């Protein structure tokens, strides 16, 4: 079943003292994927930039590179668009068992952006964390299917973690979040990625949106009022990539709209910038993901 969403994402920066020239890289536009179609989509910037270049990064995410040359006291980025999402439900578990997964990976003689090779080793924000590795090993066995292993880890982390937006920020080290068992979707996803990689499952980071208001009779999901993050795990030749949402202990479904794929947050940050500002600043996020009535 497919769902249509009208989505808006606004990210605002407010500076106490006007900030000098800046350069920014945005990844805010949802991807077009086999199960997801961007019908209309626009990334707008206010005030107008002095330079703008739209493009695609290595992983195929939509990027917007911007420059502002005048000092700014306010800067806002806004995505608005309509996206159709139709994820097929999960079928039989045909995923490769953990013990044999590395052979599956090695057999892929390709370095294209979707191949598992990029998602095996430590990355910018996800380093090797021995405690997380030990935790993942204790929960899984070599003869487990990789899908089962990932789901087990996802469920366990969901139970383990307290969703707590005050405990962490965008720069929090996964090791710290894991030690405190607190954090938001970004932290839980990073911890799960570290855990999966440590048991040999290639794993990446997904940034995206969740439907804001749940369908009748269903609970509201965590992470719906900001950009959301979840995990993709590569489960062998047969199964390929599967997306898990450890924050909500579920598989990503039609309510999950993918914006960007990467190895970790550093690859997909919605706003990456190099603003030279002396004073402090405030950031505001607004997200709205509203299903369109199929009238």
């Amino acid at each position, binding site marked *: 079943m497919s769902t249509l969403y009208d989505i808006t994402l606004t990210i605002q920066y407010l500076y106490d003292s006007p900030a000098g020239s800046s350069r920014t890289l945005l990844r805010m536009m949802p991807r077009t994927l086999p199960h997801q179609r961007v019908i209309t989509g626009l990334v707008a910037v206010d005030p107008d930039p002095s330079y703008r270049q739209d493009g695609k*990064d*290595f992983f195929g995410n939509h990027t917007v*590179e911007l*420059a502002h040359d005048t000092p700014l006291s306010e800067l806002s980025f806004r995505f608005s668009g309509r996206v159709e999402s139709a994820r097929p439900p999960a079928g039989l578990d045909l995923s490769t068992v953990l013990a044999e997964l590395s052979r599956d990976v090695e057999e*892929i*003689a390709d*370095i294209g952006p979707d*191949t598992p*090779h990029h998602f*095996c080793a430590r990355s910018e924000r996800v380093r090797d964390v021995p405690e997380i590795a030990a935790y993942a090993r204790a929960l899984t066995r070599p003869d487990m299917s990789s899908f089962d292993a990932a789901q087990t880890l996802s469920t366990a982390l969901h139970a383990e973690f307290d969703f707590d937006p005050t405990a962490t920020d965008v720069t929090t080290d996964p090791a710290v979040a894991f030690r405190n068992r607190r954090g938001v979707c970004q932290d839980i996803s990073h911890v799960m990625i570290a855990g999966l990689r440590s048991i040999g499952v290639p794993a990446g980071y997904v940034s995206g949106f969740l439907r804001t208001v749940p369908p009748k009779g269903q609970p509201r999901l965590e992470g719906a009022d900001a950009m959301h993050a979840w995990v993709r795990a590569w489960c062998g030749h047969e199964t390929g990539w599967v997306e898990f949402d450890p924050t909500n202990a579920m598989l990503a479904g039609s309510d999950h709209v993918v914006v960007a794929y990467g190895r970790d947050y550093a690859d997909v940050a919605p706003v990456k910038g190099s603003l030279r500002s002396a004073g402090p600043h405030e950031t505001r996020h607004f997200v709205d993901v509203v299903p369109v009535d199929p009238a």
Partner: protein
Amino acid sequence: MEKAISRSVGKPPLLEGYRPPKGVADELLRADGTLRPVWRPMIDYLARQSPEEIAAKFARGDQYLRDAGVYYRQYTAEGSSLRAWPMSHVPVIIDQSEWDNLAEGLVQRAELLEQVMADLYGAGEMVRGGLLPAHLVARNPEWLRPLVGVQPRSGNYLHILAFEVGRSPDGSWLVLGDRTQAPSGTGFALENRMASARVFHDLFPDAKVERLAGFFRAFRDRLHSLRPGGEGRVAILTPGQHTDTYFEHAYIARYLGLLLLECEDLKAVNGRLMVRTIEGLEPVSVLWRRLDSRFADPLELDENSYLGTPGMVGTLRNGAVTMLNALGSGVLETRAMMAFLPRICQALRGEALTLPNIATWWCGQPNEQAYVTDNFARMMIGPAMSTKLPFDIDAATALGGRFRSPAQMSVRDWLATNGADLVGQEAVTLSTTPAMIDGRLEPRPMVVRVFAVRTAQGWTVMPGGYARIGRTDDPTALAMQSGGSVADVWVVSPTPVEHHTLTGAGSGPFVRQVPGHLPARAADNLFWLGRYVERVNAAVRTLRAYHVRLETSGDAQMPVQDHLAEMMARQGFELSASVPSQLLDLFGHAITCAGKVRDRFSDDGLHALEELAASAGDMARRVGPGAETARALGALLRGLAGFAGLANDNMFRFSGWRFMTMGRALERGVQMANLLVELTAPDAPPGSLDAAIEIGDSVMTHRRRYSVETNRSTVVDLLALDPENPSSVIFQVGLLLEQQSAVRHTREATQLSPAARRILRLHTALATAAAETVTTADLAAFRFDLMQISDLLTDQYLS
């Protein structure tokens, strides 16, 4: 046929005991102990000299390197320090026909590396065709994803390469490492040559040694030809003065007449790369990069890099700049790559590698891992992804089955657990070459660094290079960082060689400088160099006045002494020590500024500053307060005067000099105005006016001009308002006026900039003031005006 050394007539004593280790090739001697003919003239020449003569010649080379300021930054656990270039004076001499064979092999290798690079950042066919494991690319920190698919504007990824080559026991050459990221050493090779030509000044000219200048000229021409339409600047991009090879960057920039830039000089504007100059933004078209790729752009590459230029990758994607070498080229330096190059060469070029590289096995494959495990006694085993040369052996390397540091596990277990992270490389034995040690030649292991550049004629190999000479027989001592030495490499032709402009003493750049505007950062550093030096000057003068009074007053402190001490304290100087540490800090700041503009500031000037700083530091440690300090400060002042003279008489009047001069004038003006505020105030203690005249270096002038005792009006007149007195405030403002109009922006032709207006106003105010009516508040206003002028100049030119 050459006779064996032992039987030749009068075997030179310097060859006594020259015995290369068994099973090792030697540059000087053949396996049968006979001398290689190409060395004959050198050995005969050395044999004719007495030990004293040889020592004198070697000293001449060392002196040259010191005078040229050739240094190398050495990093150790305790921090970094500059050390003199460690020259091994006897060159490595190689016959031209042999060199040509080596060069041919290196050209093939350069072409192969270009193809490998193009595939890694393009189609990815090597991985798809099973020639290279995906693991080594996808997990390689030097493979930069944002550069995948970015086509180099020039059509080529690689333009300058260095190869570390060594000679195997059988006499054949072997590549030990490829330097593709940002190869260093061309400048050092050149300096080495300058030095060795001086050491052997009476042998070199006729020794048929291939000259290096043609190589540099061809490369320079190539750099300029890479600009479409001949537009835009050509620059060297350096990480800055804290990198180990900064000297070389500055040296090559000066030698080739190229701009020397740091990332903060650059700005991406509308898809182009621009340099900030004192005249605004100007386009840059070609960058010879000496900075590691991942630091180049914090927006798309390493987000933690503070060195980079945000948006630089975007300008490359737009084809607005040619970068040499292309960003991401460090991936080719990966040790494990060596294991696959022979096969890749065969597949991509349909031919075998003519020059083998060091045998390498990546232990991520079962057969290779087993082989390395079985043969680990004759292997160097280390990180597969490392880009270090095989002989840069660190704690993470096992040589001959043993770790450098106490190991956690056996080599066998290490290989079994971490195979994919490891490579084994054959522990080759290198050839030896003669090094002069205690008056005798002794065999020492060596490797040679050879350079190749892409020119209009294709890849061109430098006929020479430099050799690293081991300190001991231990091949691992080769790394310069651990104290080896460096020798010139002479490629000797059978026929007389073509003479370029490079020969002889004092040869400078052989091309005219490309006209262009001074980068704002360079101007800023020169401006502040001028300010710091004059700040030192003023502080030393005041300190001296203080200590002179300390000497005459003894314990009975005079009020003017306290007043001077308070005045110094207000400027942040603590007088508890005879030389305040803050003064030494100021020297440090001045030297830092000078160090950042090595391409534009004379070596003599920098040395003079360093010597002054050293003697000030010395004084701080050894000299007691009072008369002794006063005398020592006097000597320091004479040294500072010498520095000023050097700057005035010897520096070309390019705009950088003008900024330094403005910095000096501005600081002198500020200091003098400050002195007058402090010492001519109505409540200043008795003796203050005389102190002002003394610190203002105007005692004699005052006596001649006013023929009265000092009074407030004569002091203000002489030190603030007298345009004939080089110590006066108005004199400094006059200098500012003059220099500022000389660098004035073309856009200002009809309208004065805020800085120019402010300078002119101040000058008029001083010129029309009468000494009797100038109040302390007026003097403070002059001081304030000067500080404002500094800010305005900074806004206009320096940021």
